């Protein structure tokens, strides 16, 4: 991501990004590790710590002591409950494409090879 995009990030987007990092990790992370994973030079460690504390207060994160600091992980119960509510709501819906704006809807099986080639070319 470019520097300009980062600076314009609002606090809501930062909470989302911290959450993303924690879900992508396989183990609880300390604030320093989260800060490093986001990799934005303009973002301060203290800001990350504040966001983590805020998300924990909202019940979105669990934390355990890791030395002198805390290690944070997503609260999977909350996310599982959300998943159940979403599934329940979605079963009643007729045409999802009419009310949801999805990132990906379907994949043409014939396109699979071309998409893999695109990823392999860069990775």
């Amino acid at each position, binding site marked *: 991501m*470019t520097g300009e995009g980062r600076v314009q990030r609002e606090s809501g987007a930062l909470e989302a990004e911290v959450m993303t990092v924690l879900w992508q990790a396989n183990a609880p992370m300390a604030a320093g590790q989260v800060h490093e994973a986001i990799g934005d030079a303009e973002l301060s460690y203290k800001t990350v710590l504040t966001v983590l504390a805020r998300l924990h207060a909202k019940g979105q994160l669990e934390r355990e002591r890791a030395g002198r600091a805390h290690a944070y992980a997503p609260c999977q119960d909350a996310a599982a409950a959300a998943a159940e509510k979403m599934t329940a*709501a979605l079963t009643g819906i007729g045409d999802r494409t009419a009310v949801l704006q999805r990132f990906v809807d379907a994949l043409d099986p014939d*396109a699979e090879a071309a998409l893999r080639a695109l990823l392999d070319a860069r990775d």
Partner: protein
Amino acid sequence: MYVTVYLLLLAPGLLAALGPALTRHLAPAAAVRALTALAILASASTAWGLAVLAIGGLARTGEVQAYAKSDPAALAAADPVPRTLGALAAALLVIALVRFTRAAWRRQRDVRALTPLRDLPAAGDLIVLDTENPDAYALPGRAGRIVVTSGMLRALPHDECQVMLAHERAHLRHRHDLYAAATVLAAAFNPLLGRVRESAALQIERWADEDAAAQAGSRHLAARSLARAALATTGRAGGLRGSLAYLRHQVTARVAALQAASPASCWSAAWPALVLVLLTTLALADTTGALGRFLEVLHP
């Protein structure tokens, strides 16, 4: 009068044919707005054309005359529509209204079913579902919530994840749910507008793709993000239940577009559509005036 009425009924078909072709000359944002405007104009044209034919055709029936008590000579001179044609127009109009109402009701019901979900605990605008199935979508309405599964978050590296979130945020920011709703309802009213609805759906995704790519500073990154997310959802039946045929090539088109040059709008190439819009608007005005005069004869 009735020449322009038949033009009004011809217009939706022509607009539906020209609409998707517009997307070759317009950038996605402009294309979405143009297609939505075309869909609304075509629906209005259909409705008004059928209504006027119905009124003209049924004016001389006994039931109407019992109330209106028109002068038979004047009415005959006003050259109304043959009764069968009027009845057919009335029937088509009723069918269109029923289809529209059902689609509108269905959408309202679905949006209402999703409304409580925006109160789920969120990290900023993000609601995470603990589900392996990769999926990500924006909820309709003003609440501004993106729903992403843990499966999707884990399928993409961090930078591609940010592109995916930016894409969904673009949907929220521009209220794409409203453009989608307008084209869906228009196609419900007049089935000829089905291709316009599908074309608009693709351009809406293209609009969000371009926004996300601009924010990330790399269209290639956006293409990779989309490709990886699409491959991750392959073979997982859950999220793709009953996927519509036109959606199957959407990913291919979107990835190809992100690898091609940045889109730009060339409005001058859109002149056939603009001319048609002008003619349709004139026909609407002319028909309205003629209807007014006819109603005066019908019920002086």
